[in-house]
């Protein structure tokens, strides 16, 4: 009678490593063909590494619990693999299938080895299934974690990218805001605006909210905070790009914008800012006109 099937798996893996590897690679390529994302040689190398670690771990480990220290190398390898595959664009299912597809060649070998010992075969199959299922789930978990990291990083990038402070003229800055204004973004907007005011010595900042889809009381409060902070630094703010719907919303919400200069378009705001800084703007004489 086989005790929980440990050593048979290890023996099996040891004896038939080369054949198992070939069959597995073929199985993976057949069930989830992603030749567009990963090269055959790379896949083979990953399979070989996993088989090697799987064999060594099953030789020392005493159960189907993969959270023990014996499995740490295998876990690390799978986590790294999932992360790299998630970045390459594999789905979590595809990565999990990579592990699950080892079952087929493994069971085929077992059937040969156990022959008529049906009990031993069933034990070994049950044990192996449990083990591989857990390892497969581990990859799913790692894959979603890696995805989440990617999303978080992109969100950060977007925050940085979406809040440029543009110098329009000597002493005039513009902040074209795109997207939803939350506390996090307001903080970044405020910091970068104030920093640029110090650097450029600007007297007027234009906050353009054309790209802000909705304005609620919270957004309005954030805008007013930015205006107040800029004023403390000695710079006046003009809010521009207020669409008719947003004007209606602001009034309905009872937000008080009377202390802030507001303009419908960035052009109007710019013109006012130029006037404030003492610059004049006019049309050159038309071409061909005799003066």
């Amino acid at each position, binding site marked *: 009678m086989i005790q929980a099937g440990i050593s048979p798996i290890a023996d099996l893996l040891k004896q038939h490593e080369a054949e198992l590897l070939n069959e597995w690679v073929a199985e993976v390529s057949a069930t989830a063909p992603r030749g567009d994302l990963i090269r055959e040689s790379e896949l083979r190398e990953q399979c070989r590494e996993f088989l090697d670690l799987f064999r060594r771990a099953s030789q020392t480990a005493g159960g189907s619990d993969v959270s023990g220290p014996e499995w740490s190398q295998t876990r690390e390898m799978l986590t790294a693999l999932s992360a790299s595959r998630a970045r390459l664009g594999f789905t979590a299912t595809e990565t999990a299938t990579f592990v699950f597809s080892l079952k087929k060649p493994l069971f085929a070998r077992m059937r040969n080895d156990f022959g008529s010992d049906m009990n031993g075969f069933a034990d070994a199959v049950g044990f192996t299934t449990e083990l591989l299922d857990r390892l497969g789930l581990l990859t799913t978990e790692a894959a979603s974690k890696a995805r989440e990291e990617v999303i978080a990083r992109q969100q950060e990038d977007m925050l940085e990218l979406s809040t440029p402070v543009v110098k329009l003229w000597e002493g005039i800055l513009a902040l074209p805001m795109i997207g939803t204004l939350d506390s996090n973004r307001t903080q970044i907007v405020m910091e970068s605006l*104030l920093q640029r005011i*110090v650097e450029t*010595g600007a007297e007027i900042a234009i906050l353009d909210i054309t790209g802000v889809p909705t304005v609620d009381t919270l957004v309005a409060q954030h805008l007013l905070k930015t205006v*107040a*902070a800029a*004023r403390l630094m*000695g*710079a006046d703010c003009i809010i521009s790009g207020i669409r008719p719907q947003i004007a209606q919303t602001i009034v309905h919400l009872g937000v008080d914008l009377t202390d802030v200069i507001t303009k419908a378009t960035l052009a109007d705001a710019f013109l006012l800012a130029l006037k404030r800084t003492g610059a004049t703007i006019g049309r050159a004489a038309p071409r061909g006109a005799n003066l």
Partner: protein
Amino acid sequence: MEKIPILRMGPFLLVTIQVDMHDRLAMTLQDDLTNRIAQTGARGVLMDISALDIVDSFIGRMIGNISSMARILDAEIVVVGMQPAVAITLVELGLTLAGVRTALNVERGMSLLRAAVGPAETLLPLEEESGNAIGED
């Protein structure tokens, strides 16, 4: 005791806060500045807080109070050189210093003061002993 110097420059007073503001210092400044404005009949006060890195709600309120007091004594006050971090802190604390003039640096603050007080008066030098000369002459 530690004191924040108040310098006189023509019709204006200059206050430069170069040390960490603590509560006692702020109270002393409030006393000193109001006294000096009354004594000299200064028409404008320039408060430079560019060296101030940290403010708490008390100091923020003191800056606002001192500004209001100066205005009641008929002196225009301009707060200049506020650090971005300080500005953000004050706004988060809800202290927007409404009604207080602000400028980015001393130079801008000075021209703002001159514009606010008017060119004729800025040319008149203050009498050294004009202790009671408050307000218009």
